[in-house]
C-alpha cells in the first residue's frame, strides 16, 4: 500500500486565508467538548430522576419512566437528531422563528445538546434503576423502619450507594456520549469529526486529518476514564465495594 503522508498540511492556510488547518481542528474539539459537557449535565439530571422513579411503588411513575426509556433507547440517535433539528421547530412557531433568525451554529448546538442529553438520559436511567435494584432489599426496609419517608430513604440510603455502584457503567456512558456527539455533524454542527472531514475535503489529506481526530478522541476518552476512576476512588465506601477501579 502506498500513501504519501503530508503532516505539514496542518500548518497550511485555509482557502479563505488567515487561519491554519490545525486551528480548524481545535475549534472542532471545542464544540465536541461543549456539546458533550452540556448534554452530560442534562443526561445525569434527567437520568437520575427517571431512573429513580422507575424504582418507586407508584405504577404511573414507573410506567412513565419505562415509556421514556423505551422511546429514547429504541429510536436511532441519528433519527432523533433530525427530529430535534428539522421537525420539532416546525411545530413550535416561536422556536421556528428563532431558528430562522439566529446563527445556525446556535440552533445546531441547542438541538444537539437536547438530543444527546435526552438520548443519554434514557440509558443512564436504566443504569440508575439497576444500581438501586442491586442494593439489598433490607436497605430500603431498614430506612423505612427507622422512620424515614420515601424521599428520605432515597436521599440518604438508596441513591448514595446506588450511584457509587454504577460509576463504572456511567464511565462507559460518558465515553459513549462524547463519541455520539460526532453524530451532530449530520445537522451541520462543526465538531471534531466534521472538521476532520472538512479538512480532508479541502486538502485531500483525509488520512492525516482522520489520524489527528482519532488520536484526539483517544485522549479525550482516556481523560474521561481517568477522571471517573478518580471519582470512584474518592467516593468509595471502605469495605463495601472494591474501591478504585482500573
Amino acid at each position, binding site marked *: 500500500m502506498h500513501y504519501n503522508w503530508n503532516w505539514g498540511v496542518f500548518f497550511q492556510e485555509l482557502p479563505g486565508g488567515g487561519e491554519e488547518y490545525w486551528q480548524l481542528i481545535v475549534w472542532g474539539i471545542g464544540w465536541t467538548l461543549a456539546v458533550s459537557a452540556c448534554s452530560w449535565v442534562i443526561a445525569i439530571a434527567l437520568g437520575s430522576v427517571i431512573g429513580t422513579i422507575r424504582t418507586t411503588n407508584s405504577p404511573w411513575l414507573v410506567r412513565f419512566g419505562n415509556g421514556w426509556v423505551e422511546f429514547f433507547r429504541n429510536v436511532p440517535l441519528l433519527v432523533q437528531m433530525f427530529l430535534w433539528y428539522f421537525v420539532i421547530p416546525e411545530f413550535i412557531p416561536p422556536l421556528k422563528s428563532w431558528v430562522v433568525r439566529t446563527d445556525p451554529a446556535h440552533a445546531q448546538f441547542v438541538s444537539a445538546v437536547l438530543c444527546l442529553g435526552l438520548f443519554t438520559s434514557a440509558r443512564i436511567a436504566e443504569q440508575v434503576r439497576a444500581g438501586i435494584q442491586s442494593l439489598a432489599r433490607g436497605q430500603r426496609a431498614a430506612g423505612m423502619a427507622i422512620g424515614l419517608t420515601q424521599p428520605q430513604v432515597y436521599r440518604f440510603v438508596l441513591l448514595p450507594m446506588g450511584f457509587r455502584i454504577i460509576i463504572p457503567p456511567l464511565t462507559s456512558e460518558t465515553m459513549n456520549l462524547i463519541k455520539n456527539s*460526532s453524530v451532530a455533524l449530520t445537522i451541520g454542527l462543526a465538531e471534531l469529526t466534521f472538521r476532520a472531514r472538512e479538512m480532508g475535503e479541502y486538502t485531500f489529506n*483525509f*488520512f492525516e486529518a482522520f489520524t489527528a481526530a482519532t488520536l484526539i478522541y483517544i485522549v479525550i476518552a482516556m481523560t474521561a476514564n481517568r477522571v471517573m476512576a478518580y471519582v470512584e476512588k474518592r467516593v468509595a465506601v471502605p469495605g463495601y465495594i472494591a474501591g478504585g477501579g482500573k
Partner: protein
Amino acid sequence: MHLDFGIISSGLPFLWTGFQYTVQLTAVSAIGGLFFGTLLALARLSSIKWLSTFAAGYVNLMRSIPLVLVIFWFFFLMPLVLQAMGGSERPVQIGAERTAGRASNPSQEGRSIPRTRWG
C-alpha cells in the same frame, strides 16, 4: 402547519427498500461482529503476549473513537487497501451502490468488487 400523512403510504415502497438494506446490513454486521468478536476475545485471553496486547489495543482503539469516524476511515482507506490487495492501478471505489447494491443484481452475481469496472 399542514401535515400530509399520505406521503407515508405513497412512499412505502421506497421506505421498504431502505428497510431491507437496514436488515441486510444488520444481519451481515451481526454475524461479522460475533465472528471477529469471538476471535478477539480468544486473542485477548491468549497466553501469547503480543496477541493479547494487540487484541486489547484494538478493542480500546475501536471503543474510544466514534462510529462515524470509523465509517469515514473505512470509506477512505478501503479503496487503497483493496487496490494493494488486488494489484489494481487505481484505488478501488466502494460504496453501497457499488458493492452491496450490485451484489443483488443477477447480472453482476459472482463478480468480485474488482478492477474490471474501471477498465
